């Protein structure tokens, strides 16, 4: 039951993009076409799940055990960068088609603050291993959902007559503001 709660909470109620403002750069940068947005979302979900699976043992069995939790930022960022690199190499070997589809999005994920944020929140909330993996996956799903919705809206906006100063990033953020309001409606799903 707790796992379902974590899933719903991380993907809808506390959506990383719309309530914690993590991962805004790809959210604004790659949301102009639905297809790109979907690929970015899937790649990010994949990396987030793996990040949760990899950083939890690093934190619990290495940093805590040797009493150096203050090194967590350095350790996490290195782990994430290495992970993205490994995933990229593996996909290039095993599935060139997928590799072409993901293209430049994979390396960009290293600097997606949502991935590091995920590792930090995981530690902050004392999740166990299974919960962490679910949390990582759910966060990725939430990110995909948000970026996909945004790209759908932006494709329609191509035909709208937007005042000049508002074009581009400005209008995207204002739409995001309305999406954040809409997502607040999910807060009723879980008490407390």
């Amino acid at each position: 039951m707790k796992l379902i709660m974590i899933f719903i909470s991380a993907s809808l109620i506390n959506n990383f993009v719309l309530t914690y403002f993590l991962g805004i750069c790809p959210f604004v940068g790659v949301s102009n076409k639905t297809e790109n947005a979907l690929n970015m979302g899937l790649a990010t979900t994949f990396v987030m799940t793996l990040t949760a699976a990899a950083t939890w043992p690093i934190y619990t069995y290495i940093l805590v055990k040797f009493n150096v939790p203050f090194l967590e930022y350095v350790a996490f960022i290195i782990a994430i960068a290495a992970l993205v690199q490994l995933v990229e190499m593996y996909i290039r070997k095993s599935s060139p088609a997928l590799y072409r589809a993901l293209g430049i999005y994979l390396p960009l994920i290293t600097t997606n603050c949502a991935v590091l944020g995920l590792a930090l929140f995981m530690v902050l909330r004392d999740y166990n291993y299974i919960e962490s993996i679910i949390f990582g996956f759910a966060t990725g799903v939430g990110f995909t959902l948000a970026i996909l919705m945004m790209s759908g809206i932006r494709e329609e906006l191509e035909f709208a007559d937007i005042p000049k100063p508002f074009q581009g990033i400005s209008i995207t953020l204002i739409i995001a503001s309305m999406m954040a309001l809409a997502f607040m409606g999910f807060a009723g799903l879980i008490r407390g």
Partner: protein
Amino acid sequence: MAENNGNTYSLWHEFKKGLWQDIPPFRLVLGTCPTLAVTNSVKNGIAMGLATLFVLLGSNIIISAVRKYVAPQVRIAAYVVIIALLVTVADMFLAAKFPPISKALGPYVPLIVVNCIILGRAEAFAQKNPIIPSIMDALGIGLGFTMSLATMGSIRELLGFGSILQFKVLGSWFEPWIVMILPAGAFLVFGSLIALVNYISSRKAEGA
């Protein structure tokens, strides 16, 4: 100011460009996460801006100093480690000296590591320039960023609580706009400020 081609002028220029021409996050759209997340009050915005300024200054100095010794293939990894260490220092300093602020900023202090402004300046400026211009660049961009965060913070605090720096500015007649404190308000204010900056610069360009 074409006649002022001396050294002082170019240093001043590196400093000044961060304050308007390249002001983050409005002109360089980098570092958006902290801009949105911690600007529900002026105090948090300024604290975040200064923490970022410190890390940016440190990373620009170190990266500019080691720029000839780092192999280009591993530079990003090396920069990230340098930045992560500086952020650890900033985080521990805040936690020791200003516990309430550290608590309010929460995980957003460690997230300075992935603030694209810092890596962006390292890539775009510090790795190609000597130490002194890199310091000026860091100070300019850092102060510009702090100013932007303070602006965002004051708009949201004024409309959301009717106060600035916890001083009640608007009287009891004022009904706070709760939405300004919520995430939605952050996106709204940020989007509108970008539009305002665009508008002012397009007016300037027309006037010139």
